[in-house]
């Protein structure tokens, strides 16, 4: 459960219509910006964060004190450069870092929304971002950029607001959640809901289902890595001991690492948010309105696309990116696609794999020169 901190926020002018049919009454959206919007308002770049990310893309995190989560991509001299771009990153609706979510006070009684919060979708997240941009006076984006769930949002932008985006960068993403993706998320949700402290989602502020959320994070974290990466990092090495304990302590380094990942996660994340956001990802299938056909999704607008996958990513494997690329090609769109090599699995997009920055930089500069 994240402690209360102050975030930069905007309360939207209007209620937010959601895919489920409900209206979210004037939600608050938390966001960060870097750089300056130019006079032509043509240099705005929206960065979309992944499942457990937030708006602190390249500024110090107020809870963990760590640098932003994508400083390898965002910063002076980087592909997304505050000297050149006006960079916006907002916490997704349903999140827990200042945007309206299940931990926010319900407008009627001031108590947390809990499970009264409506189920949201990736398209709802994007609709909230568009409303935020309206509030900031930005009509058109030079680029929407994201990895993983951020890439899904970037693709959704092209589908929902084709005339507001000049380019889309989707890294280690997919146009739908596979059965395996849904299955892993369900394990995480069940871990949370099996924790007695979850209390049907109505846990009091400050005493959520920390154990369940930690287990959810541990299971998910494995899917972000690769077998080769885990072997290289930990192998079968023991944690601070010379032999097996013949008990159930964290004998192995990999166990200790995962426990640490789980326990530190609960300090900065809300369990109900985890349920809602994983649900949004599971519901994601861009081709759903077109009877499974993806090409019609990209029929409108003029955006150029840059799609990147990683050879060791088994969560959103290259075949999913290739499916997006084939749809874009069939729709006659300008698209660049490369499968980069990295041993680090899905997490590679956060880790500066060779070639990624050059590809994104070259792509964005071409879009900028394209007028």
């Amino acid at each position: 459960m994240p402690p209360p901190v102050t975030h930069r926020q905007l309360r939207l002018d209007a209620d937010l219509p959601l895919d489920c049919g409900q209206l979210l009454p004037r939600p608050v959206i938390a966001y960060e910006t870097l750089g300056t919007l130019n006079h032509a308002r043509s240099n705005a770049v929206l960065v979309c964060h992944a499942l457990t990310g937030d708006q602190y893309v390249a500024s110090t995190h107020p809870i963990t004190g760590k640098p932003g989560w994508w400083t390898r991509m965002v910063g002076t001299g980087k592909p997304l450069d505050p000297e050149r771009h006006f960079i916006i990153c907002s916490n997704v609706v349903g999140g827990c870092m200042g945007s309206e979510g299940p931990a926010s006070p319900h407008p009627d009684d001031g108590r947390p929304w809990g499970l009264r919060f409506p189920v949201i979708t990736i398209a709802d997240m994007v609709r909230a971002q568009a409303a935020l941009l309206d509030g900031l006076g930005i009509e058109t984006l030079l680029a929407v950029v994201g990895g993983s769930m951020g890439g899904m949002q970037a693709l959704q932008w092209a589908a929902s607001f084709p005339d507001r985006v000049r380019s889309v960068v989707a890294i280690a993403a997919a146009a739908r959640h596979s059965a395996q993706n849904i299955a892993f998320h369900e394990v995480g949700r069940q871990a949370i809901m099996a924790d007695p402290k979850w209390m049907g989602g109505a846990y009091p502020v400050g005493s959520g289902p920390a154990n369940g959320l930690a287990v959810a994070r541990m299971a998910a974290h494995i899917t972000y890595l690769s077998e080769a990466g885990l072997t290289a990092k930990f192998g079968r090495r023991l944690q601070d001991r010379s032999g097996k304990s013949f008990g159930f302590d964290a004998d192995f380094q990999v166990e200790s690492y995962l426990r640490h990942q789980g326990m530190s996660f609960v300090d900065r994340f809300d369990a109900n948010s985890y349920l809602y956001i994983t649900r949004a990802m599971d519901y994601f299938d861009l081709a759903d309105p077109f009877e499974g056909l993806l090409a019609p999704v990209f029929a409108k607008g003029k955006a150029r696309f840059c799609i990147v996958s990683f050879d060791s990513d088994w969560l959103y494997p290259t075949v999913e990116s290739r499916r997006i690329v084939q749809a874009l090609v069939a729709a006659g769109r300008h698209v660049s696609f490369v499968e980069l090599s990295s041993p680090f699995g899905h997490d590679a997009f956060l880790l500066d794999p060779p070639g990624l920055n050059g590809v994104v930089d070259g792509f964005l500069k071409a879009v900028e020169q394209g007028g």
Partner: protein
Amino acid sequence: MNDLPVRLQQVARQIPEHSSVLDVGCSDGRLLAWLRDNKNTDGRGIELDAGRVAAAVTRGLSVVQGDATRDLAAFPDQSVDFAVLSETLQAMEAPAKVLQDLVRIGRRAVVAFPNFGYWRVRMNLLFKGRMPVTPRLPTSWHETENIHLCTIDDFRVLAAELDLRIEREAYLAGENPISAWPNLMADHALFVLSK
């Protein structure tokens, strides 16, 4: 144009300004970049090798990593002015299928390839009795990616079988244009084709 290898210059000469181009097997995008910078073309490319794709995208080109035999199918009919296949035909798994895709996707196809009927190649085989290794075809038979080598006459026969119209042809021996006896005298051939 001097910054382009001579064989790519020959391809570039076939492409008018402001054309749309799909370069199949575009390597690091040098032809597409040159055409964009000098002829304001609207270019796309497809290339198998990830490192070359990354280099092309870093140049700001719309290049996708993919395999011509499998991935050309997604491109819509008659969606570009020119579909280019330069120095790649002989490495294709199914050259006939790729040629048909080229004239389906492009209003015209530009196909350039090494001529296996070149006299030095013939001499090599005749006198040495060994598979030819030439400057244009530098790897030995067991290492080469060139699995479907052909002569200019072979290509003409295939083009006729596929009902392709030959709109233009050009031949090189080394750096020099050739017109007489191309199947014997040219080490390199270029055809502009349409359906």
